[in-house]
């Protein structure tokens, strides 16, 4: 009886909740869905931007991309960005977190550990543009701090870090690693706190050394966090713009060109809006595909773990 009267009432009251979706839906449509659609539309045109005529070219822009070496080069550099923003920071962050948590936190003191953690995290909080500008000065060939120091050591002709096509990419990558490290370190430290200490005690009693415990217990236990870090950092690496803009503007000789900067160049420097829109669309597809792939991997690994238990 009571159930019967509640049910229709509930169904009606649930409809009320659609009202709460209205502001979010309108906002999403105006700022994301419509611009996304417009961008697709632009990418099918040749357009210099502004009041210039839009000329329908179909998929021509996408076809040109296939033969555009700068475009391929930018995505190749994305792989280096992933190395610098995902792979290296995750590995170093894991090591730092393990050292801070397992060793310094337990044997030296938790205060020391949290001070060190805050230090590693510091680059994360400053505006990326500010970080880039400081590093730009450090790497500057004439007045930069690094070369001044090298000259002080008697090096007569120190390298032009950001001006040499062979050195610019590694220099940019170093800055990105420096910026990123804090994020995995902090997350891994909290992940390690979550791991049941009894697991370690049991393994220690079985005579497993630190490294074996790390491999057999720590790594599997912190898998969820590892996936979150991999996903968010990979997306960030594919999107990276500000550090490139303030450090090298994609140069020298396109050696540090990335997709987002390449589409920016087409939009505003080359006045090839349709082409830039096509680059942005491809970048979006790549990001969504990579994100899906990582999530699938995660789902599969979770399933395998469950079956294993």
């Amino acid at each position, binding site marked *: 009886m009571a159930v019967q009267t509640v049910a229709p009432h509930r169904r009606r009251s*649930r409809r009320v*909740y659609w009202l709460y979706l209205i*502001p979010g839906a309108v906002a999403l449509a105006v700022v994301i869905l419509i611009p996304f659609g417009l961008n697709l539309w632009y990418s099918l045109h040749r357009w210099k931007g502004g009041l210039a005529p839009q000329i329908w070219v179909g998929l021509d822009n996408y076809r040109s991309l296939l033969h555009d070496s700068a475009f391929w080069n930018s995505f190749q550099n994305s792989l280096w960005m992933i190395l610098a923003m995902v792979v290296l920071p995750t590995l170093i962050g894991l090591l730092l977190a393990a050292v*801070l948590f397992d060793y310094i936190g337990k044997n*030296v003191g938790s205060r020391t550990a949290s001070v060190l953690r805050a230090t590693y995290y510091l680059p994360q909080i400053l505006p990326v543009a500010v970080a880039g500008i400081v590093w730009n000065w450090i790497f500057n060939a004439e007045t930069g701090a690094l070369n001044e120091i090298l000259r002080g050591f008697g090096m007569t002709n120190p390298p032009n870090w950001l001006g040499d096509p062979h050195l610019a990419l590694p220099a940019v990558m170093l800055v990105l690693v420096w910026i990123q490290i804090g994020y995995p370190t*902090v997350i891994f430290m909290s992940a390690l706190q979550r791991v049941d200490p009894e697991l370690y005690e049991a393994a220690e009693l079985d005579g497993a050394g630190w490294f074996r415990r790390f491999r057999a217990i720590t790594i599997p236990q912190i898998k969820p966090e590892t996936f979150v870090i991999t996903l968010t950092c990979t997306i960030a690496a594919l999107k990276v713009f500000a550090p490139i*803009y303030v450090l090298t503007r994609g140069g020298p000789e396109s050696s540090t060109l990335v997709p*987002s900067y390449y589409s920016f160049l087409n939009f505003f420097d080359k006045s090839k809006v349709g082409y830039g829109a096509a680059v942005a669309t491809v970048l979006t597809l790549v990001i969504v595909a990579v994100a899906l792939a990582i999530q699938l991997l995660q789902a599969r690994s979770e399933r395998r773990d469950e079956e294993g238990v």
Partner: protein
Amino acid sequence: MTATLTPTVATATVTHKNDRHHRGALRWFILAGAVIFAVLMLAPFVLMVMNAFKDPAQYSSGGPLALPTSLYTDGLVKFWNAVDFPVKLWNSIWTSAAVAVGGTALSLLTAYAIGIGRVRGRMWIVMIFLLANMLPQEVLLYPLYTMAQKVGLNNSGWSIVIIFTVIQSAFGTYLLASVLGTFPRALLEAAALDGANSWTVLWRVVFPIVRPTLSVLMIFFFIWTWNEFFIPLVMLTTPESQTVPIALASLQGDRMLDVPTLNAGALVSLVPTLIFFLIFQRTLTRGVTAGAVK
């Protein structure tokens, strides 16, 4: 179980004791490594502070590592006046604050419908927000730029507020929806029995309980918006509307940007975020970890 384990515990403690010498050396070695790494991480900050207040003449003669012999503030003054820093600071503060409040409110409303209202097709709605969160800004930039021009919001802080309220709330909705999905139903049912409508439930029952999460979101949104570079760079074309990071970048390549000016500029540009970080440090680290486990 306990009985069989006890002897092993005893031997384990014994080996520990034998190890102590070896461990002591290793301990200092590892600590030294961690500290050296921390020093390397801090090095750019140290270089920045040391050279922000150093005379350009001393910089060229003594190099970046020499301590400044006198407190040179011309660089700071030059930067402050050249970019009209108070204006930039105010632009950054009000746009970031508006996005923090607006983005959190918008996230709460949408997440309320998804997590508590459990509207039909909510999986799809969450998916859309997740995808929106993944989009590179480049794919929205040019259309947003033309749209802002049409409605006269180009070169206005409001364009930044509107755009980032939505972009940040895409993340906020995703996070809050999963938090609200686990909201105790008993509380909601009790409120419904008391005759509370959905609006009252939102503000009297749900809001007080999720307030800690909301405050973490607000801090995130504030810092993220403050640090935004790409869209503000394109949208804010004149100095009087620009934000702090754009102001600093706009000086790049300028003749007047000598070493002390650059470093003083970078220093004052990061001071607000640093202060903000120190104030909210605890809430923030809690938030970073909360986001990770979700």
